[in-house]
């Protein structure tokens, strides 16, 4: 039984797109963390907290 039959029509292309989407999403979360951290450092340096 091949992959497509076993997982309801999911093929190699779907998997590649899925993995790409997930990695982009994870990198987006990491980038937001970096940006947010930078904002907090700036806020701290000007004495907001």
């Amino acid at each position, binding site marked *: 039984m091949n992959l497509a039959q076993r997982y309801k029509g999911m093929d190699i292309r779907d998997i590649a797109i*899925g*993995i790409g989407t*997930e990695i982009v999403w*994870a990198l987006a979360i990491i980038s937001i963390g970096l940006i947010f951290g930078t904002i907090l450092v700036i806020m701290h340096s000007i004495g907001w907290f």
Partner: protein
Amino acid sequence: MILRPQVSDLKVIGYYTGRLIIGLSLTMLIPLVVSLVSKEWNPALDFVIGLASSLLLGFILMLICYTSRELTWTQGMVVVSLSWILVAIVSAIPLYMSGHWGSFLDALFDSVSGYATAGLALVQDLDHLSNGHNMWRHLIMYLGGQGIVVIGLTFLLGGGRGAFSMYVGEARDERILPNVVQTARFIWLVSLVYLVIGTFVLGITAYLGGVAPPRAFLHGMWVFMAAWDTGGYAPQSQNILYYHSLPFEVVTLCIMILGALNFRLHYAIWSGNKKELWRNIEVTTFSFTLLVTFIMVSIGVLGRGIYPESIMLFRKGFYHVVSAHTGTGYQTIYPNQFAEWGGLALTGVIIAMAIGGGACSTAGGIKVLRIGLLFKAFLEEIKRLMSPESAVIIQKFHHIKDMLLNDKLVRNAALITIAYLVLYFAGSVIGMLLGYPALNSLFESASAAANVGLSCGITSPSMPALLKITYIIQMWTGRLEFISVFVFIGFIITVLRGK
């Protein structure tokens, strides 16, 4: 009334436990091959002895308890709890024989920590551990993350009547595909595809960072296994700090986040439903709680003058919040450096650890799905109080599909959340009784029970045996999410009391 188990019930439990032990024992062939290829003869002998002992135990159980009966629901739950204990014990044999663990209890601690994907470790002189034993430590973590029952369902047991109860007993209450065996195989498909990609990317990153090619590949594979399964073991005693590499840290961050995703969510995305990443209650809850805990940590450390540059805050503060929230436990600082962070930052890390990652993922903790459901229920209650008595309030949430928030879901989420909170608290009380500071005790207890593995310095070979046993129980109970453990305890009591 619960009936006293008959001999035939015990035989079914023994037979299936024996099958699982044999299946897991065969995975010792992998570190054995690694030892032989690396020309590590003494470690190879450790694995031959470990393999022989565990196969013997498995075959004896299967022979004595031979039966053709299928598992019932309760028996399936008992098999899960019992197998996790016995598999951890036999897996500790080659670790103990290496001489890198001070006692068999220490080796068992690391074995349980590996299977539970916690990552707390009592190994000594890790930097000189053989390739074979390092392979075994990380393989244990990789197997434990997917779940030993998932391995059994994939390769050994088939999808009998009791298969689903064993699957649920291993804290995987979501079925991805209609058939539980297909579900188990899909979990392995995702993990193996990412193993290939992750090993390649981490291996290249380590090589570019200066690690020699054969080691770079092995380190890439081991670090991937522990990051994907949100475990936290590393081949060097300095953990991820050893690599001193921003790209390596970014790649491990990426793997930790993906490892904490629900396998059902992976299935939805791989099936073309990309919008699920923005709508799913787990993703939104995870993003929100990650942000809140990162703010707490940032304010805490910046207020104490630590990591005043954004890149340092990212590499130390954000990295550990992600490591804690996904339940991984990778560190880029020494354990004792957490003492410099102060109360607010440590509390932020503890909250992140306590919440954990996605349900039906490799992560531990309360799980973001339950936190999201409780938050929705809280909002619903406020709306109800503010609305006229005759108003009908319906609360929905999106998890793969739109679902109604009913009392049963909220009750289940609240019960498991309370059970986790009690477990965190109980471990911290024992830590305090043994003389450790309150916040440090809570930190280490939450780390063990939520299967995280971050340490503020308490976990060490010299800590009291009582605390080692406490953390072993916490890791085991936290990984299985209570239900099968409670059924196991109830089963033992019923056997002893006769009713």
